[in-house]
């Protein structure tokens, strides 16, 4: 289980996150939702250690990530897989080398075992014919799938996805959504994903954290979120229904 407690973060004068406390349920798809610029990405970056919050705690199974020493931090990081908004595949490596990269760096697998694991992960994301292609040679949706394959290569306990379907067409978005949901169930991963897509939330979300202008505005299950009548949520919901 991941808990964040009283997270504050400012960039210069601008306070982006204000006293955020939230819990993310194990083995579920946890969706962080909020308007553009509300601070979703910053919150996620705080959770994985890319941005240091000004104060607060980030607990992975009760262990505080922020105050952990170097080795414990490294141990926690090995349990984290992350899919980036722009996929962030290594340009100089092919799809299969990208997936093999964390194995090469952190596992004691033999070459053969690595290859098997890479084939398994790429097969799991339904990419059986792109092994030798470079990121510049594949489509956005395929990049996301390679990104997911790389993120799950080391069998992580936690999967973070920063806007996994931004920049994709609606059909491909659903494919990626479903893939994330299946992987979460199949490998019993705790998934935390950022989105401003209501369809994603209602399709695959189990738990929702709603951020409004840097503050936590709602936390709970999807049904309660749908029924909530507070102004911020109604505004957000009606805007997204209107959009569709």
């Amino acid at each position, binding site marked *: 289980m991941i808990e964040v407690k009283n997270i504050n973060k400012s960039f210069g004068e601008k306070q982006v996150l204000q006293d955020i406390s939230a819990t993310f349920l194990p083995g579920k798809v946890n969706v962080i939702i909020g308007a553009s610029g509300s601070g979703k990405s910053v919150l996620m970056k705080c959770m*994985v250690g890319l941005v240091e919050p000004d104060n607060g705690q980030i607990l992975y199974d009760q262990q505080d990530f922020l105050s952990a020493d170097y080795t414990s*931090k490294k141990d926690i990081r090995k349990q984290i897989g992350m899919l980036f*908004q722009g996929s962030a595949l*290594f340009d100089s490596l092919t799809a299969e080398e990208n997936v093999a990269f964390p194995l090469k760096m952190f596992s004691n697998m033999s070459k053969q075992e690595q290859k098997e694991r890479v084939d398994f992960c790429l097969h799991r994301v339904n990419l059986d014919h792109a092994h030798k292609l470079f990121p510049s040679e594949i489509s956005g949706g395929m990049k996301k799938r390679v990104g997911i394959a790389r993120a799950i290569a080391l069998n992580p306990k936690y999967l973070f996805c920063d806007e996994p379907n931004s920049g994709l067409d609606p059909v491909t978005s659903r494919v990626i959504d479903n893939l994330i949901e299946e992987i979460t169930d199949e490998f019993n991963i705790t998934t935390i994903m950022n989105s401003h897509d209501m369809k994603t939330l209602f399709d695959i979300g189990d738990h929702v954290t709603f951020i409004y202008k840097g503050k936590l505005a709602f936390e709970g299950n999807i049904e309660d979120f749908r029924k909530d009548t507070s102004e911020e949520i109604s505004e957000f919901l009606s805007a997204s229904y209107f959009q569709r």
Partner: protein
Amino acid sequence: MLLFYHFGRYLLFLKKMFSKPETFSIYVSRTFTEMVEIGIRSLPIVAIIALFSGAVSTVQTAYQLVSGLVSKTIIGSIVSDTVILEFAPTITCLVLAGKVGSSIASEIGTMKVSEQIDALEVMGINSAGYLVLPKIIAGVIMVPLLIILAMFLGIYGGMMAGSMAEILPVEQFLEGARSTFKGFNVAFSLIKATTFGFIITSVSSFQGYYTEGGALEVGRSSTNAVVYSAIMILFTDYLIAQILL
């Protein structure tokens, strides 16, 4: 004030890079790749520059020494000494700052703006160490080797220009070159080369690593990498000369 801010950031960057390195074997293979990239790929340009700068200095030295009172062997001494002391290390490194520096800064800058560096960090890899240290080690090893080559080719270029333009025969050129040759000059020059190799790779990596934004900023970082490396090369060139000569 801004100067101190950036210099401080540069020092912190170096510190970050050397702290907590990854597995040794990974560094070794990355370093070899970079040695090819920085060293072998720069051979043609280094050779051309060395040959021509040597040739030009023979022609121009001869032009400046029109008086018949001094022996022509002096041309050999002047040319070989300037090639060893200044042309080979400094001019070559200024050009390398352009070639190697811009490619390092744009490579790392692109990785930064497309979140590839974040991806490394999330995996728990010290991105600065993993990406930059192999480049710096490769630079510190390969640049002096390139400079040794540049010394030979520079002197050779000067010698050939002398004999082809019938300024002085090869024997006289070599006699002059030998008469003033000092081992210390070569050592001095290699100290410069090592320092410049460090400057080019570290300054360019620094510029790339702190790129924020998009493609436009990557281009800007790459330009800055060349400009700042060149300025630092000239500044340290002067500093080392003051200290050691």
